């Protein structure tokens, strides 16, 4: 019983094949060996979209909302990965979002305590340098003065020039903005160049006068 009819025409099935519309002797449609095409031809074309003032207004609204979302603080971007070397400008120029700070200030009383995270204030950066400024000049002045005293013994001309420069820079510092102050810091502390070696070229003519009998190349 089992296997009867196998290999001769079509096999037995539990339902009546004629009900499906496949009569006796008809050949079945050819079997397909590949999946259906990606964009099959459509038997019916879709209905065209609605048009009108309302539709256009909502379309414009949608696109505006999408653009506006990118500027809101709720759009969270990962912090850019650190570059290979810590740059000096990182201290003063980081406008990039940081992972550890949130860009807006939610109402923390409505959130569980574990979500509390530092709120980043982009304008707060101006405060620390301004606070430091009144302190810096006295310190700078003292430094300069002590250096001047030690160098007084060595070369008087250099010292006087330096004092002028130092005073000029003092005057500049009080007027200037923090960006200038960076420059000042650079100059005042931790420099590789010792003040006494500063040669602004006024002696150049003097030296060469002394050695006139040597050949100049």
């Amino acid at each position, binding site marked *: 019983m089992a296997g009867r009819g196998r290999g001769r025409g079509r096999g*037995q099935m*539990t*339902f*009546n094949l004629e*009900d*499906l*519309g496949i009569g006796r002797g008809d050949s079945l449609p050819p079997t*397909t060996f590949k*999946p*259906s095409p*990606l*964009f*099959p031809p*459509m*038997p*019916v*074309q*879709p*209905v065209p*979209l*609605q048009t009108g003032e*309302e*539709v256009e*207004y*909502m*379309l414009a*609204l*949608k*696109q505006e*909302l*999408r653009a*506006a*979302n990118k500027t*809101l603080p*709720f*759009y*969270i*971007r*990962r912090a850019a990965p650190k570059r290979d070397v810590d740059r000096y400008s990182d201290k003063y120029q980081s406008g990039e979002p940081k*992972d*550890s700070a*949130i860009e807006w200030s*939610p*109402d923390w*009383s*409505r*959130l*569980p305590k*574990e*979500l*509390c*995270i530092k709120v980043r204030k982009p*304008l707060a950066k101006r405060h620390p340098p301004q606070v430091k400024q009144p302190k810096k000049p006295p310190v700078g002045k003292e430094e300069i003065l002590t250096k001047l005293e030690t160098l007084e013994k060595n070369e008087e001309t250099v010292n006087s020039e330096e004092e002028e420069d130092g005073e000029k820079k003092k005057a500049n510092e009080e007027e200037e903005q923090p960006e200038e102050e960076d420059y000042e810091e650079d100059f005042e502390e931790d420099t590789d160049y010792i003040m006494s070696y500063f040669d602004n070229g006024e002696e150049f003519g003097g030296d060469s006068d002394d050695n006139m009998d040597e050949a100049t190349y």
Partner: protein
Amino acid sequence: MTEEPMRGNRRSFRHLPQNSTNSDVGPPAYQRGWSANIPSCNAQLFGKINLPVSAEIRCVVALAITCVWDSEVVLRGFSRNSFHDLKGCFAKHMTAQEVRLCGLLLQEHFGEVVERIGTHLLRGGAQNLRTIANETNTPLDLVKKSLCVLVQHGACEFGSGRRGPGSPVEYRASCERVLRVLRYPRYIYTAKTLYGDTGELIVEEVLQRGHMTMSNTVKTVADRLTHNMEEGRSMEYSEVVSAFSKLVETHFLQRCPPVAEMGTAATSTTPATPSTPAAPASTSPPTAESNPDCYKLPHVTLIGRGKRRRSSDDSEEQRGGKKAKMDSESCGDEGIYWLVNFERFHQHFRDQAIISAVASKLDQTSSEIVRTMLRMSEVTTTQTAAYTQPLSANEIFRSLPPNYSISRPILDQYLSLLVDDPMEFVGKSGDSGGGMYVVNLQRALANLARATLESVVQERFGSRSARIFRLLLRKRHLEQKQVEDFAMIPAKEAKDMLYTLLSENLVQLQEIPKTPDHAPSRTFYLYTVNQLPTARLLLQHCYKTVANLIERRLFETKENKRLLEKSQRIEAILASLQASGAEPEQLTEVEEMITAPERQQLEALRHHINKLDSTENQVDETVFLLESYIFSTKTKRERGREGGEPGG
């Protein structure tokens, strides 16, 4: 050929419930295997065909809407998810399509980080902070930030853990709320039609920020309005306040629900909601409606005018902005946050749909009568009511708008016409007061959903298939022979159409055996259409459509990224040149930096993106109808069960 009676046939269906699914009669196996791969192929699908561009877009849009494959995967996804969600007993069943669409929406609005966290929460149910961070491999700080954003926008709720008050806080994302993002333009436009530009901006600000205090909203909106006005004029705060109060009075805006105390039995300082039990572990946070002060405006006097922002003194404005922030501290309404009441907007949309259906089926006057009836019952009808409160004909007559002066007998005629209409929008519930009439909300929604289904079948398969579909909807169960006879379609074609509909799951097959051994020659096979499951199926198709549209739009944008950036740069250069007063030759020189073919490409790109965007908006209208229908049927069943009625 005769079949032997097959006892113990492995295909006997006695164990199946009455309404068998048609997984036993479906497309051949190879198609099923292929369709399972579709979701992952979608992204690849659209890149590789060399059709002319416009035809391709049309094809894609049409395919996205018609969605030929995948019905099986959708169904399987539906059932599979419901098993996996057992661990999170608060989680609702989420289908694969819904999660995919939510992921895309979150990515567009809040970025990839929030998208990853949100999708993880949606798939996995309630989780605590550490679990989320570990399973998504995201740094803890980013997870915290994303959760803050999600909670701010109401997409995520937090509550005490499952193991009681001592366990860490658990977070739960709400799929429904994320899907609302799709409808933002519609909400904003509705506010504009009802309350003008001020109302529109108020709703837009509150939607974009999640929730805001009243003073903050008023100031921001006044500034924005001032920015758009002419020089020298500015917007008064009082005007904005009046628009805000109108929105609150009509319940379009509501207060945020008070935050549930976690782990303690102490009541909060705001009026205790009746739903908070004394026990510490309350699983459901209080809803906005449970707060009795939900629609009460705070006593704040805001006096001032909007500030005009000038681009030249940015630093001054920033300092001014800081001062404004400090001012709002002293406004007296901190802690009272307002959010948009989506349900109220949905009520409004539903009313609009009913009115326009009446207008197109009957005439303008009938639709005005129905509009009057709905307006009168706005405040008295609850969210889930099946019909409005009964209104007498006298009241309706008095409340008709003055420019619609129809006489009393004509009104009665119109009302009886409405009642007799087979769509059953209006029903008569009594005879006192000249006749008591109700608007049948639930039945109207069901009819609207049915019309949507019929129209979908008609557009996809032709009007004769639609005839068969409508026949089956009305006559419930029909044999194949009866279908051919009633639909007056020749047998061969009717068979063909029936099997096409069957393979798309729009029509189901019901077996009624004559003999206990289910012999096929002695069994009735009846075709049937169930409206609710079919509506659910179509809703999932719609979600998939919108997700496909968004993906295609992202693909198009990515393909032309270089060109878009170039055009943006050139626009910026042009704008700055114009602002600094350059000569026309310089401007034309800059404009010529974009070549003509590039211009064409840009134009075509813009056209395509506009088309895809407005298609999304249009599909969302269908989504709204189907969702409202499914929700109202579900609540009707629950109400029936609570009321002790037999059956559902």
